[in-house]
């Protein structure tokens, strides 16, 4: 029993801790190489993420979309689907959601907010379902299609908002000089939950989403279905599970979460949409889902970590004047050590657990769907 306890302590506390430390250490090397003082840099990063005025609130603001995006991708991974398309689904979700948001008027917020949210999620669902449908019925590899759909989604949003050939887009706000949609109706804006900050109700939505997604995956028959398909399509099919249907459904739900991220950003922050609303979220989302080992609960700390890094980066640059890309180096070195506990075990010369394979994307490559 004691040895079990010790093992548990090591694997669940010491190793992750050591991983983060190791990650920051490697990041420090890069900071030095970039000609800055790591202590000053990390100090500023921390202050900018947590201790400055409103910093923690801002960190949470950045965390919200990460949580929703991370959940979406994690869910896909569990079904063996590598949904690279989060960014595109983010765009479409924001687009459909904002359309409803500025089209409805004067209804109470407990109607308008859900309406806009659902519209956004529906948009994301539909967009992701395209890739799912193509995979299920033509075998088209979702990595290709979802990458391509990202570009298409951006261009759709861009066309509807920016317009083309000098003509304004159909969704552009009248009499504003910048290409953006009208503001959503007052009742559709997510209320601020920390006065004086930008932290909005989206945080609660994200926090609710985590247990919901966990429950969906681990406790419902739908979740069982998608895990079964993720592990072994042949057996799933023989057990009467429709693999094709499951793939479309899973891609859809995954996309709905990405879409939710998009519309929540709009309803909570800018209240209107531009064609760069999703810029920069796509790959962070993948990294977060992977860091979380595709586990919904894991998404929470992973998203918080990324939110803190994202948010602290500004102040770190103000203090050090090193390129904002520095944060990517820190992110990467953190992921390496967190995703590969084996390395840390090996560094710490811990022989208890053998190197275990950490298979996060349960992709079953060999059997195509039919």
């Amino acid at each position: 029993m004691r040895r079990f306890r010790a093992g548990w302590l090591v694997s669940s506390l010491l190793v992750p801790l050591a991983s983060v430390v190791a990650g920051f250490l490697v990041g420090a090397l890069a900071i030095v190489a970039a000609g800055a003082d790591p202590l000053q840099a990390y100090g500023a990063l921390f202050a900018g993420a947590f201790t400055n005025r409103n910093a923690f609130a801002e960190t949470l603001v950045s965390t919200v979309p990460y949580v929703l995006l991370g959940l979406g991708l994690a869910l896909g991974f569990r079904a063996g689907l590598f949904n690279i398309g989060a960014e595109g689904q983010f765009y479409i979700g924001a687009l459909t959601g904002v359309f409803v948001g500025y089209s409805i008027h004067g209804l109470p917020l407990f109607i308008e907010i859900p309406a806009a949210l659902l519209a956004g999620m529906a948009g994301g669902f539909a967009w992701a379902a395209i890739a799912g449908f193509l995979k299920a019925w033509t075998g088209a590899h979702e990595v290709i299609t979802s990458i391509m759909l990202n570009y298409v989604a951006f261009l759709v949003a861009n066309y509807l908002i920016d317009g083309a050939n000098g003509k304004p887009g159909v969704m552009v706000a009248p009499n504003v000089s910048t290409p953006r949609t009208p503001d959503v109706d007052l009742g559709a804006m997510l209320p601020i939950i920390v006065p004086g900050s930008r932290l909005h109700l989206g945080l609660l939505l994200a926090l609710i989403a985590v247990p919901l997604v966990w429950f969906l995956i681990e406790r419902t028959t739908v979740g069982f279905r998608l895990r079964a398909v993720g592990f072994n399509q042949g057996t799933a099919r023989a057990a009467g599970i429709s693999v094709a249907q499951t793939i479309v459904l899973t891609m859809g739900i995954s996309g709905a979460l990405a879409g939710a991220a998009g519309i929540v950003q709009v309803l909570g922050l800018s209240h209107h949409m531009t064609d760069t609303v999703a810029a920069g979220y796509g790959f962070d989302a993948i990294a977060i889902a992977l860091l979380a080992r595709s586990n919904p609960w894991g998404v929470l700390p992973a998203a918080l970590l990324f939110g803190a890094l994202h948010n602290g980066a500004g102040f770190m640059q103000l203090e050090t004047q090193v390129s904002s890309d520095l944060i990517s180096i820190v992110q990467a070195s953190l992921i390496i050590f967190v995703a590969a506990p084996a390395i840390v075990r090996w560094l710490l010369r811990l022989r208890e657990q053998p190197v275990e394979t950490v298979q996060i994307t349960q992709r079953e490559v060999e059997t195509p769907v039919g």
Partner: protein
Amino acid sequence: GGTTGGTSSSCSKTFKVGQVTDIGKLSDKSFNFDANVGLKAAQSDPSLCVKGAVIESTSEDDYAKNIQTFLDQKYDMIVTVGFKLGDATLKAAQDNPGVKFAIVDYTYKTYPSNLAGLVFSEDQPGFLAGALAGLLTKTNVIGEVAGLESVPPVVHYVQGFENGAKFTNPKVHPLHIYQPESGAKDFNDPDWGKQQALTFIGQGADIIFGVGGNTGNGGLIGANEQGKMCVGVDVDQYLFFPELRRCFITSAEKLVHNGVKTAITNLVKGTWVSGTVSYNLKNNGVALGPYHDFDSKISASSKAKIKDIMTKLKDGSLSTGVTA
């Protein structure tokens, strides 16, 4: 790297000036970069006592936050770049009347007294460069490799350039291409730009106008590689691209750095001007760059023509025909 320090000891008060870029970041080789040049210029000018810093925005939700970061650090002035920051800048200016704001390439209908919108008549240098191109082209075909059509300054340059070329050479056949919107590659797809230049050259073009950050620069590289002439943009690119020197006939200059430095100077000297500040040929906010290596190859009469056009544009007796 960075722009910390630089203030001389004689300063009674140090003015802290922060710049917030749009998601194009400083490496856009365009207005974010030029604005930063202006900020650095102000900083290294000992008479101004300026300490500058920049924050690059990585996603559009950062705009308001990054401005706020400077405000929390009690900065005296904040320079923002591009229409994408229009809303965030206005709101911050209204909430912080004690802090001065300047936004590049953007105007408002009404301004608070602490906000200035710096705009530039890109059509004028575009027209002049086009006029020169019209005179120098032997094939009567010229090409423009441009950035996003949704960014007004780009369109002003292109239209000015084409009108100028037609003005001096009615037979000229201008070809232009705007970079398709792509998000990640906006203003930053030099290889694409280069291939477009090659396409134009395949159509007989002998002068390429690169107008669109690194995408346009790709066009210049293509022209240089094929031994054709090229026209730079925004700054005197002859100085920034030593390896392309032999192709530059001139650059259509938009002196964002001057604009930014002037705005900062106004703050320091207590001569702050709010509202729309337009820079044009009259106040040297825009200019036609030097001919450099082509100086000898351009006939006196041509130079005279250009001078004449310039004066006409200044006194308004000639219009570029571009409606901003």
